[in-house]
């Protein structure tokens, strides 16, 4: 479970972080609409992962705990928490998916190409500004690093999957 969670986190964090870095370090530098959207998306995805893991454990606890009547309240409590988490996760996942799709569509349709978003006003506040003319040489390193990060995370995840699925070879030969 721990391994699986770690590798899932690597994949999710890596990709989200890469996307966020790309957007943040595009001038104007700072947290804007897009990057905030990515951060929220990744955050909620990770939150869902943790909540479901906790929910699984709690379900197991409340299923297997058999004891005197004093523990029944604990059992009911854990069950309640588990059910709540499960439903919350479902809701969050739905909302998150909708949000991500909408964000992508908005970005491609240039609806976010507004003064407010381009100036990264969310992060910079009163000091925000809009760039009219800029020389993008310095950006290249950030983008390259972000891309490398994303590809590396994908590579780690896929390589790990390949490693663990490769083992039982005679099992699959009838």
């Amino acid at each position: 479970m721990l391994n699986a969670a770690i590798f899932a986190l690597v994949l999710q964090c890596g990709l989200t972080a890469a996307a966020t870095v790309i957007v943040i370090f595009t001038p104007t530098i700072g947290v804007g609409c897009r990057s905030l959207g990515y951060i929220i998306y990744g955050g909620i995805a990770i939150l869902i992962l943790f909540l479901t893991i906790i929910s699984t454990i709690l379900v197991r606890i409340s299923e297997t705990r058999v004891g005197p009547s004093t523990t029944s309240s604990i059992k009911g409590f854990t069950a309640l928490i588990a059910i709540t988490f499960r439903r919350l996760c479902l809701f969050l996942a739905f909302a998150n998916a909708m949000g991500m799709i909408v964000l992508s569509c908005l970005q491609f349709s240039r609806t976010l190409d507004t003064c407010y978003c381009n100036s990264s006003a969310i992060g910079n506040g009163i000091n925000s500004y809009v760039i009219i003319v800029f020389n993008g040489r310095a950006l290249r390193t950030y983008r390259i690093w972000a891309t490398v990060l994303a590809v590396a995370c994908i590579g780690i995840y896929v390589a790990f999957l390949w490693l663990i699925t490769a083992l039982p070879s005679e099992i699959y030969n009838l």
Partner: protein
Amino acid sequence: MSVGSPALVAYSLVLTALNARSVYRRAQQTDHESKNDVTRALISLQQTPLELTKNDRLLAFIPINDQWRREIVERLNRRYSWTVATGTAIAWVIVAFVFTLIDSFISLGNSAEDIPAGHAVGTVWMWSLCVVIGWLWVPTFTSGELKSAIRHANRKAVKKATKKIGQIKQKANKAYSAAMTKITVVNRFSRRLAVLRRSKKNAVDPIPGTGDGNEEVETGSTQVVEQTELKTYTNASLQEPAESQRGHGRGVRANQNATNSTAGSSRSTAIPSTTVQSIHLDMDRLFITKDTYSSLNRDELRLSVTFNYSRIMRYLVLVDDVFRALDRPVSGVGLPRTLLILEVVLLILNRRDPSPRLLLNPQRALFFLRERSDRCSTRQFSPLFSNVD
């Protein structure tokens, strides 16, 4: 759900692969003959809610389990491999992403108007590539495939089981007729004996006898004595057919099944042939277990890879139980080694049996089995012969 949390899908995929690995590793510790079959079945059925059955009827026909498992393995034992189509699709995705990157880097120097959207968005959505590759490697099935495979296996198993039951019926009928001839002989003998005894009692002494408790009964003692003696005799004489059937495997258990089904009514109904006929296969009840699924663990009923995370706890315990059962069969009476193999149940298909939840506890299962085997040994033919007059 998967779009909402790619991390969850990734987690489930890795879990599935790790489970397969752990099942394989656990199987290496046993040297049971059907360990590979069991491993395959366990690996390929990760997407279904699994349970070890504790159903009496099911346990009575263990060879069905073998058959069923074989069918399931045949249907579900395959991995998706790299075909031209999947390879091309994945290559397209990668090529598109590379083009996006190139575009992003080229437009970097000379345009100041907008952030190129493709780079960031493409990166965020790249998880789908990993997930698709994972689906190819980890054995995953659609719910339709799973359902059809299980239905097919059920049908096959039921067919085989009915055949087996026919054989058992024949055997039981033969044993019954053989025993009946003996019983008639004994009947005559015991009746004569009772008459003799009564005459002796009347003649010599009204004081009850010393050793036998049966002689204490005064009026109507003929019948009682007759019955008890008959019972002891039948028990003694029936050891032979019972032993022969036990050698054949499922005979004993089939009869025990008959015991269960007709235990209540065996006192009143006198015709044993109906008892033999009542070894029937209740098709509806064959592959049903306890209704353990409430709103607490409803995710376990969803047949998607994404929800494999919810089944992990139950699955791991089940794997352990199955292999422990393979390792250490109950050293009971006449039970073969392939006892308590897994019985896998797709609850979506047949969820009609609401009964109290039994926890997956190996000790309880073993206790249950031992109790069952005891019953087998003591009351083998009781419903057949308890009320022969």
